[in-house]
């Protein structure tokens, strides 16, 4: 069955047009990822208008090409000029740039390129094996569980805003409000329209997203005239040859680091809202802690390049797992992909993989193939990168600004969308400057209507609110949400304040309740193990607390 689906998907993708589109997408992603100031999400957003006229599998394959390309492209500028092309390559710069400065830029690039490739391949294997299983779990979900899952996704997004958690929460709630404007999906009643036709039509999700994210980013890029007039070649030398063989040998010698970092990447991707910007730093941190020579990290150590690059590519696989299995976008990139699929009337849900196996497996295969494609294209992209680095930032920004408008228009062929883009561009720019994170707002806009729909279905089945606490998955997500709200405080005080020692055991104990309620064999056993571990942590708590206080 799986083999049949794989073969059908390969046949679906194995035509010249799709392969060409994926190649162009991967190349565009590599270049966009390499240019500081242009994030992967922006590259995906800019690709979107081209996918409207394509078939669903072609469109998604192209976007996956851009996604994987963007993740790999970020390492080029990070290693060669010390400025990470995307937030997902920040940690690569810690060791990549010093290694390049020491006269080994080709080796540093080789490590980055091959670690990205292996990370992507490990993630593909996990994507193909985990996504269908997770989808089976998703089939158990009832409306209450879905609503709680979305609630969890929103709280996690906000809590990852770090010190600005309250701003993250406000941003998420603002996103939910934006999604309310216009005609209500359930009853067809206009909300927050005030008799205005423009508001009455509501805001289409993609113009809002492009405005909030891409448009406002471009405004930030041109704020400083001196910086806007600079090209990357003003910042460093970018001509170099990649050392492939030496890099592969080094990576194989450090395979534990590679596998660990890839797993960190996949796990981070599976979590809603925790993208590659987080996973690369987490993986770097773990590689440093596990290394026998942690003092060498930051000075041009190979492990410091392998870890973040394997992790950031693997994160893409993790994010796709959640999107495909549960229909919940894990980050901005998968939110855009979800939007693209919806345009083609393909609605990701737990039944998606079984009901639309051709498209689902086409996504798996496209992700697998994109990693090979990016590997092959890296050398060519490096030459392209050298050319792009000669273009001044303001030239790129001006052209892309107009492109955003035209691209958005092509979505529904109405100029209102162009106005929406500009208005949300202003809002996004203001929010950026006031240090409000944009990701929660974007996810709020995407998830708001879905949350309302599931809430409505829940209440149609039963008006008893206690149902949210008696359904095991719903309870599971509500508990996880409550703890996720306190996560940023936990992170801030971890290792400094005694209360943080209670956080993990209490979370585990609380989660044992819904796991036991789920029944069967595996989950209650898992609950028992978690409970035992939590008790063991609580027993050790006084000793750990004394140790913490004494230090």
């Amino acid at each position, binding site marked *: 069955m799986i083999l049949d689906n794989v073969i059908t998907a390969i046949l679906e993708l194995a035509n010249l047009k799709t392969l060409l589109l994926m190649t162009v997408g991967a190349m565009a992603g590599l270049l966009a990822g390499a240019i500081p100031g242009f994030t992967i999400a922006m590259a995906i957003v800019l690709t979107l*208008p*081209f996918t*409207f*006229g394509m078939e669903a599998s072609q469109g998604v394959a192209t976007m996956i090409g851009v996604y994987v390309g963007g993740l790999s492209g970020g390492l080029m500028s990070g290693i060669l000029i010390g400025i990470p092309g995307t937030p997902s390559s920040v940690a690569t710069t810690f060791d990549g740039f010093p290694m390049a400065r020491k006269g080994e830029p080709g080796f540093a690039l080789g490590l980055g390129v091959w670690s990205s490739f292996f990370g992507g391949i490990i993630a593909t294997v996990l994507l193909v094996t985990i996504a269908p299983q997770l989808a089976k779990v998703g089939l158990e979900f009832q409306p209450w569980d879905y609503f709680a899952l979305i609630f969890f996704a929103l709280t996690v997004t906000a809590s990852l805003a770090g*010190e*600005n958690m*309250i*701003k993250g*929460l*406000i941003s998420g*709630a*603002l996103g*939910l*409000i934006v999604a*309310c404007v216009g005609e*209500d999906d*359930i*009853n067809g*009643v*206009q*909300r*927050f329209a*005030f008799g205005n036709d423009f508001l009455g039509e509501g805001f289409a999700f993609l113009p809002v997203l492009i405005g909030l994210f891409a448009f406002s980013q471009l*405004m*930030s890029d*041109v*704020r*400083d*005239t001196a910086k*806007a*007039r600079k090209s990357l070649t003003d910042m460093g030398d970018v001509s170099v040859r990649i050392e492939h063989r030496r890099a592969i040998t080094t990576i194989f010698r450090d395979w534990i680091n590679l596998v660990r970092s890839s797993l960190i990447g996949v796990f981070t991707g599976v979590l809603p809202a925790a993208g590659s910007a987080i996973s690369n730093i987490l993986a770097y941190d773990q590689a440093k802690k596990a290394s026998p020579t942690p003092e060498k990290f930051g000075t041009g150590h190979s492990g410091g390049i392998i870890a973040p690059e394997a992790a950031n590519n693997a994160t893409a696989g993790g994010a796709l797992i959640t999107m495909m299995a549960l229909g919940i976008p894990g980050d901005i990139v998968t939110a855009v992909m979800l939007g693209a699929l919806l345009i083609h009337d393909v609605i990701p849900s737990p039944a998606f993989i079984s009901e639309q196996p051709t498209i689902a497996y086409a996504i798996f295969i496209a992700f697998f193939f994109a990693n090979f494609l990016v590997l092959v294209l890296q050398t060519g992209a490096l030459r392209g990168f050298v050319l792009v680095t000669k273009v*001044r930032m*303001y*030239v790129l*920004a*001006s*052209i892309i*600004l*107009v*492109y955003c*408008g*035209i691209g958005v*228009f*092509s979505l529904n*062929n109405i*100029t209102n969308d*162009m*106005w929406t883009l*500009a208005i949300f*561009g202003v809002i996004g*720019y203001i929010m950026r400057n*006031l*240090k409000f994170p944009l990701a929660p707002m974007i996810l709020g806009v995407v998830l*708001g209507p879905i949350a*309302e729909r599931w*809430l*409505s279905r829940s*209440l*149609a089945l039963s*008006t008893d609110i206690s149902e949210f606490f008696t359904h095991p998955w719903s309870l599971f997500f509500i508990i996880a949400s409550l703890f996720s709200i306190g996560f940023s405080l936990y992170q801030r005080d971890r290792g400094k304040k005694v209360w943080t020692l209670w956080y993990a055991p209490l979370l585990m104990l609380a989660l044992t309740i819904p796991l036991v309620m789920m029944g069967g064999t595996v989950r209650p056993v898992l609950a028992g193990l978690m409970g035992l571990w939590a008790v063991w942590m609580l027993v050790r708590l006084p000793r750990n607390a004394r140790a913490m206080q004494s230090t």
Partner: protein
Amino acid sequence: MTTMSRDTIVSIILLLFCGFLIWAGYQIRDPQFGELPPAAWPKAVSWVLTGFCIVYFVQSLLADRAGAEPATVTDGREPGLAGWFRWYFNPIVCLALYFTFLATLPYFGTLIGGILLVFALLSFLGGVTPRLIVNHAIIAVISVGAMWLLFTYGLRVLLPRGELFPGI
């Protein structure tokens, strides 16, 4: 006397916005069917947002009282309205140009309007010398022309045409 930080001012504006949202929530028509009235979700979200904004307001006030460095520090910009205007001059002009492009779109159409917009943006951000003007004009014509051709003939999108140049 404690001065109000930017966060406090923003939180007050947000609270006023929340008040408006709550009022607007009560203006939503109720068709009297279905378990979830159309106003219920927006109202609930408005109240949640209000709660967050109150926390933000209190946090900002406490930070002001403690004389703590505000979380949103100004990045070396000059104080006062003139300093603010100078700091955000480029984005303000770019946005103004973009809104002008949108307002004049029914007259100029996408191709001419787009070329004019790119040329104006390039000249404003990149500076104006005879050589740069020629460069910017070439970049504007080629980039927008290519985009227009791609969308019109490649993707079959009927881009907005202008009254002044109905053919394109």
